[in-house]
């Protein structure tokens, strides 16, 4: 019961604090740290240090030793002065979102940001992390700015906005921790995780479209061509040569279908599984170089291929929201 109450109280304060932080440090594309957003408090090491000072003070009193007093007072003043130095090690740093994602669900999502400073002062050991990510350590000495890449596991499909990013430092003495949470406006698109499956793409046949595009292949005979060095002996038109004609080689081609349509209705499974299967096929089709289009309940993307088309298609899959609403 008591534990439960404690949890409730803690939760209450956590929520209140988060609200306070949100008001105090509004999200932005670029955020510069100053005294309004930096929090500072003794670290665990700092609390131990305070305890040590207390023990040393008792020793100084018991031994009536003025130099021991001096040492205790000196270390205490050092502690106090360090507050400003720890604070200064965050103050004036600017954080700018450079890019986020995309990534497939289950992979880690890259977030890139730029850290820069206003003046020429050095900054040491700035830790940048989300609670669920690995920390990146930044030191700015000679260089004015530094790009930092952080990785987060993507929790779900769609547009992913990470929580507040923690910026923290213990420099110079580790006795105090200065920290802040910043929210940059960035979002990563999380594609469905591809799931291997059979093709369901419906080809639009060559005859239908009235055109065929020859690509080098080995299926159908296409035409004769004058022999060129390097043509395989297998394809040489020996008969003609024997009849006294010129040496010619036979050319074979495959006919690429003009385009394929991927359709929501032609894959089976739950919503997520369908999306995963479609994702797999999109990737495979893009690899094969053919044009492909996508039909989802509310979205239709005309056939095309290339990097931008791929992204458009995958984003449509990522942002698919159940199919009910348009």
């Amino acid at each position: 019961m008591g534990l439960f109450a404690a949890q409730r109280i803690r939760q209450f304060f956590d929520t209140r604090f988060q609200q306070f932080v949100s008001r105090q440090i509004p999200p932005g594309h670029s955020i510069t740290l100053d005294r309004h957003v930096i929090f500072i408090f003794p670290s665990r090491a700092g609390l131990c240090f305070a305890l040590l000072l207390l023990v040393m003070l008792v020793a100084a009193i018991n031994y009536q030793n003025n130099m021991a007093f001096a040492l205790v007072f000196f270390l205490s003043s050092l502690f106090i002065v360090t507050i400003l130095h720890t604070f200064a090690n965050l103050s004036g740093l600017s954080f700018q979102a450079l890019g986020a994602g995309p990534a497939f669900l289950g992979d880690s999502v890259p977030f890139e940001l730029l850290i820069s400073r206003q003046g020429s002062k050095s900054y040491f050991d700035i830790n940048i992390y989300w609670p669920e990510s690995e920390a990146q350590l930044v030191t700015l000495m000679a260089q004015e700015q530094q790009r930092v890449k952080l990785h987060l596991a993507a929790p779900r499909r769609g547009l992913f906005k990470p929580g507040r990013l923690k910026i923290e430092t213990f420099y110079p003495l580790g006795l105090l921790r200065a920290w802040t949470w910043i929210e940059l406006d960035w979002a990563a698109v999380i594609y469905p995780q591809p799931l291997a499956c059979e093709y369901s793409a419906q080809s639009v046949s060559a005859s239908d479209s009235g055109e065929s595009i020859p690509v080098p292949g080995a299926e159908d005979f296409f035409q004769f061509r004058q022999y060129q060095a390097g043509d395989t002996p297998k394809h040489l038109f020996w008969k003609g040569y024997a009849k006294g004609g010129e040496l010619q080689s036979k050319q074979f081609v495959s006919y690429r279908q003009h385009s394929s349509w991927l359709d929501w209705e032609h894959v089976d499974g739950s919503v997520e599984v369908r999306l995963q299967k479609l994702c797999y096929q999109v990737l495979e089709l893009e690899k094969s170089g053919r044009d492909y289009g996508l039909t989802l309940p509310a979205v239709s993307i005309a056939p095309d291929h290339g990097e931008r088309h791929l992204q458009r298609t995958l984003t449509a899959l990522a942002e698919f929201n159940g199919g009910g609403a348009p």
Partner: protein
Amino acid sequence: VPSAWNIPRNALAWILIAQVALIAPHIERLPLWVLAVYGLCALWRIMVFQGRWAFPPKIVKVLLSMACFVGIYQSYGSLIGMEPTVALLFSGFSLKLLELVSRRDGYLVIFLAYFVALTEFLFNQDFAMVVLVFATVMLVTTALVALHQQGYQRFDWISLRKTAVLFAQAVPLMVVLFIIFPRFEPLWQVPMPSHQASTGIGESLSPGDISDLAQSGELAFRAQFEGPPPARGKLYWRGLVLSAFDGRTWRQGKLRKDFLSAQARREVLQSLQEPIRYSVVQEASHQPWLFTLALAHSDDSHTLAVDDFRLVRDGDIHSRIKVDVISDLSATIELELESKIRRRETMLPTTGNPQARAYAENVYRQSTDDRAFVDAVMMNYFQQEFVYTLKPPLLGEHSIDDFLFNTRRGFCGHYASSFVFLMRAVGIPARVVTGYQGGEVNPINGTVLVHQFDAHAWVEVWLAGSGWVRFDPTGMVSPWRIEQGLERALREEGSFLEESPLSPLRFRDIAWLNNVRLQMDAYSYYWSSWVLQYKGRRQLDVMKALLGEISAFRVSLFIVGVGALVMTLVAVVSLAGRGQPRSSAEVQLYLGLCRRLGAAGYGRRTQEGALAFARRISATGARWGPLLLAVSEVVNRLSYESLSSEQRAVLLKQLRRDVFTLSLQLRLRQQ
């Protein structure tokens, strides 16, 4: 949450340097093997860092820790006390190096180092030592800084420079705290340095004791008189009174000596007709004796008076202390002698030294009274061919006989001892007093410096109607000793500080060297009396002078005032160049103007350019429309055109004027 952590290269280097600096002042009181263990652990840790060795297995660490405990117990005979504690701290220090894996371990080693730095002061608070320890603390702190330069890791001046800045900024607050923090009485009894040999006058006097001491040029104590110090020949610093003789050695005696009651101490104070005020700054002797001029009184709460009228401390003196004393050199001491004390001061062994006894009885028979007898015995030392020497021959079974009638070569102890024997042989109360005689006046601050070689033994004889009277038979043999000091008395023999050839006291003839020595001593005296002894009345005086009156309000005002001043300065220095980006002057002026326009109801839309905004306002027919257009054009030119600095200055001036005019028009309109 920092992940896998490895100690930064520079942090490890600074930790090792700081540890070596910490060990240095403790070397004399640490067993050699503790140093060896440290060396081994340091080497091992370096090898681990370089990837050549692995961390030792747990069993090795456990065995090493146990070996250290046993070793310390063996070396000191105990685990309690200051020296064993220091040795334990150092062992922990060394062994922790072998476990220095996480950042937390780093903190532990460094915090331990701060504590070890404090222990150095418990043994020595000289100025040089204080400088050394604070320099060491700087190294320790540098290690702490380096521990947080994970992304830098270079072993160079950057870490040290950061520490130096922090140190400089921490000093003012430390001084304030030092001045105002009340010096409480000890909260509980703590172990004192127990394994240090006591120095100075010992508890007993055997032939040859004091001549050993005479080889030492160490400072025993200083005395600072309020007026000019008395003549050198009058400076008999009484330390111990020895009343029991066993045929060879004088001791304080088995008969209990009582401390004077508060009543008796008040009487002593009242009997001081011509008081001389002075303070004695006693060096650590690890004994309780204080050295004062007869007859002495002190108000100090830790000072006791013994019934033979000397002052002692209530515990052994392990660090320099200062005691304020009042003395009267001409006061009579104990006119009435209690029978118990008379018995104590006339006791002799029943047998031994027959020649001396016969001689004393013979002279006593020829003397008219006690006083005449004393004078006759004194004259005997003058008339016979006695020699004052640091190198007396060994004495036989009847030591007094052997000395008086055979060798006749001796140091002060021999003369005092034989003299008291002769007195007691005829029943006159007499006793040996040991302490120091003379001292060197430092012309720079008038302090009297008393060194170990000033150690001396003399005699007090009780005479009816005069009380205890001081006699110094050594003076009959070597008047130089009393008037000029030991160096002059031993000039012919050349044995002064023979065993310390480099002691600066041997070079007092060389003026500049002597001057340096005395100057250093004067500093040392100010250091100990103003800084080390800063407490009690002295602290109150300083605080009164500083604050006018001592009240909680003024004290807190003082702390907060100085604290705020220091923190503001530190903030200005350390936050310079670490603020928000500042926009250029023209943008600031323009944005200010926009704010005022907004307040007057002419808000600029988001994403609206300066010129577009101005045209929109002009179109409404506002009076200041044209001026706003002009301002916007100037702002645009300043922002986007490349201008020479003269052009910029002219345009800025124009902009300032226009913005001012426009703001004025706005304000007038509002009213």
